């Protein structure tokens, strides 16, 4: 392990209320000092971070890496490498891989592959029900012991309310967080875009707002009844934000996140059959987008995530409803989040960074996303003023499916450090 010093950077560590210039010293993979170096410390490598922001490595609550099962599309190595280039040091991976993460072997495989690649920490979510079929609860304890950070049924609905209740009770017994995708199976029907003026205009099957709010209402009732710690993944409607906000106010142990693209795109972007904007849940109205932004501002939503979904080109080459949903979004996570500071003034820079670091860390129940002394040295160094065009040649992920290609972005990661080791360095 190298002894490393990051000098003259503007350190933002929201968990410790640090927002000032500091030097950071790292040894044996851990942060050992902020400010003056410890006596006798001599850095083998020095990174000059003047005019740069130095913050904890980002924590992304949801990123599919296609491994195991679809390695021809992307791998844990390729996507964690892309993550490192975007300042992300911890990723949470949903259980809908092939095979599904419902046995310890699959969880172990994912962690092993991530360790081998060495670009980022990958925390798998275990399946909530066996084969994600929504019928029988999974062996949650075995999954937890194999390193699963929580349980989830991914995008497959648990339509049987009794099964959901039992799954939550079981998870609550062993202090596992349940990650929920709020989408009513029946109301979603065959929808592929938000049900509204755009779906009507283009004749695309719509997904009504109630597909989300009905599911949120049901699950909130069960969360309250069972006392489980729960997290709603990728909320898309303003109304759901308010429902979750009310539940939090009433003391229910529930959190939620939003994807960076739902904060910047809306239903109009999916018009003209733009399959790059085919996402799930769908992009909704400007009003919903404002509701999501307000939810973030008020702290109801406590994390911004990528919901990374890399695809090969063919997956988006079909009539809109026949295309695969999802955006390759690791590399736009930080710049899109920073837009909330620079363009909308919605959040301060430390607030945005909190939503990308210690707050998602708290949701996962891990001690990460801070620059506290003694912590593993996961650090992101970025230039907040660096303007660049997000072009195909800039994309590190195997998935080029992004509606943001061609956008001018501001803010670029220059160095990413994982456990004291520089895992990414921008060629300049």
């Amino acid at each position, binding site marked *: 392990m190298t002894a490393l010093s990051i000098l003259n950077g503007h350190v933002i560590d929201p968990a410790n209320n640090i927002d000032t210039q500091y030097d950071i010293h790292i040894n044996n993979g851990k942060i050992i000092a902020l400010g003056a170096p410890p006596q006798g410390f001599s850095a083998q490598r020095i990174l000059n971070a003047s005019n740069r922001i130095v913050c904890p490595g980002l924590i992304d609550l949801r990123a599919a890496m296609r491994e195991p099962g679809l390695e021809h599309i992307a791998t844990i190595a390729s996507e964690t490498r892309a993550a490192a280039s975007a300042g992300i040091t911890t990723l949470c991976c949903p259980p809908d891989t092939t095979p599904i993460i419902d046995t310890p072997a699959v969880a172990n495989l994912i962690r092993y592959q991530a360790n081998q690649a060495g670009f980022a920490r990958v925390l798998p979510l275990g399946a909530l029900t066996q084969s994600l079929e929504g019928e029988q609860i999974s062996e949650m304890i075995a999954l937890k012991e194999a390193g699963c950070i929580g349980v989830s049924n991914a995008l497959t609905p648990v339509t049987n309310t009794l099964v959901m209740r039992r799954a939550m009770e079981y998870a609550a017994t062993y202090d596992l967080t349940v990650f929920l995708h709020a989408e009513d199976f029946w109301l979603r029907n065959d929808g592929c875009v938000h049900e*509204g003026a755009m779906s*009507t*205009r283009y*004749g*695309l099957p719509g997904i009504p707002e109630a597909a989300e709010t009905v599911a949120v209402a049901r699950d909130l009732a069960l969360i309250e009844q069972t006392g489980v710690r729960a997290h709603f993944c990728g909320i898309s409607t303003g109304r759901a934000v308010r429902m979750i906000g009310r539940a939090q106010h009433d003391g229910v142990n529930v959190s939620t996140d939003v994807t960076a693209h739902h904060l910047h795109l809306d239903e*109009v972007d999916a018009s003209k059959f733009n399959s790059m904007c085919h996402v799930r849940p769908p992009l909704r109205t400007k009003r919903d987008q404002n509701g999501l932004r307000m939810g973030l501002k008020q702290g109801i939503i406590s994390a911004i995530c990528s919901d990374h979904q890399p695809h090969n080109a063919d997956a988006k080459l*079909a*009539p809109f*409803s026949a295309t695969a949903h999802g955006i390759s979004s690791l590399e736009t996570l930080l710049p899109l989040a920073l837009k909330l500071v620079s363009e909308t003034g919605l959040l301060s820079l430390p607030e945005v960074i909190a939503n990308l670091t210690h707050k998602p860390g708290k949701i996962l129940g891990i001690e990460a996303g801070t620059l506290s002394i003694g912590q593993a040295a996961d650090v992101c160094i970025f230039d907040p003023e660096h303007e660049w065009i997000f072009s195909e040649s800039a994309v590190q992920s195997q998935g080029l499916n992004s509606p943001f290609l061609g*956008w001018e972005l501001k803010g670029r990661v220059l160095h990413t450090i994982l456990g004291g080791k520089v895992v990414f360095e921008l060629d300049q």
Partner: protein
Amino acid sequence: MSTRDDIPLFASSPTNIQFDNKGRLRHFLSIEGLKKKVLCDILDTAESFSSVPQQSIKKVPLLRGKTIVNLFFENSTRTRTTFELAAKRLSADVINLNITTSATSKGESLLDTLHNLEAMHSDMFIVRHAQSGAAHFIAQHVSPNISVINAGDGQHAHPTQALLDMFTIRRHKGEFGALKVAIVGDILHSRVARSQIQALTTLGTNEVRIIAPKTLIPAHAETLGIHIYHDLKEGLRGVDVVIMLRLQYERMQGALFPSEHEYFHLFGLTEEKLSVAKTDAIVMHPGPINRGVEMDSAVADGVRSVILEQVTHGISVRMAVMSMAMQQGENE
């Protein structure tokens, strides 16, 4: 920076895929994005073709030597036949491909099917597909010398049907500015209704109404520039044109209405209900009719019905669209 401004409904955009770089019609995919003048040009051209069937030789040589492929991914009799007739009257060679039973069932992708047909030196694809946006998608990916005509895509558009309806209305009623038109039935699933509404609004129709229960009206339908009615008689009061839609059983899912009986009771067109419309109101239907569900036989076969005329006009309108789309590429 490629963020987008809010796109106004039905405005033509400078990058409209339907035109070539000289502003000539290249593809015919939807009414959206076409100005009134373009629609009128098509109707006028169709008018000039309408005498062709009365000639002893029912052909004009406009598309001689051109190959037109009827690419139907979804079943159709009427539309496919009238497209075929229209192409033959323009002297083109026509190939009919029923894709539902061929390539895609062997796992070939839509793009692969397309590239194979391109390799056979086709000049025009007439496309029907079950998914909204399919014709747009195909138009985006064909080589530059090929025109694409949308013969119906999912629930999105059926622009030639809408134009043959406009042709029929114009024949009977003249200018659109004074007209009140009511569209009755399953608006939610109807590509025909979407295209009709766009055509009627573009042509400056005084008032466009839709009449249906809430279950068959799409979300925020008012954004289409129409008036919404749930009572048939109320909606038909004083209208010049009544367009009945087909109740699309094949797309019907879930509890959209309780029974055919109740549907006919509330929304089926009878002489009695029609009596509140203008005395010279015409009755239209894109076909095929479900007699006793959407309308009484007395109305369907009555003096005000122009349903069979619509079919005849379909041929001249399709001749017009094909010949105009094929002009691009000439004189270059």
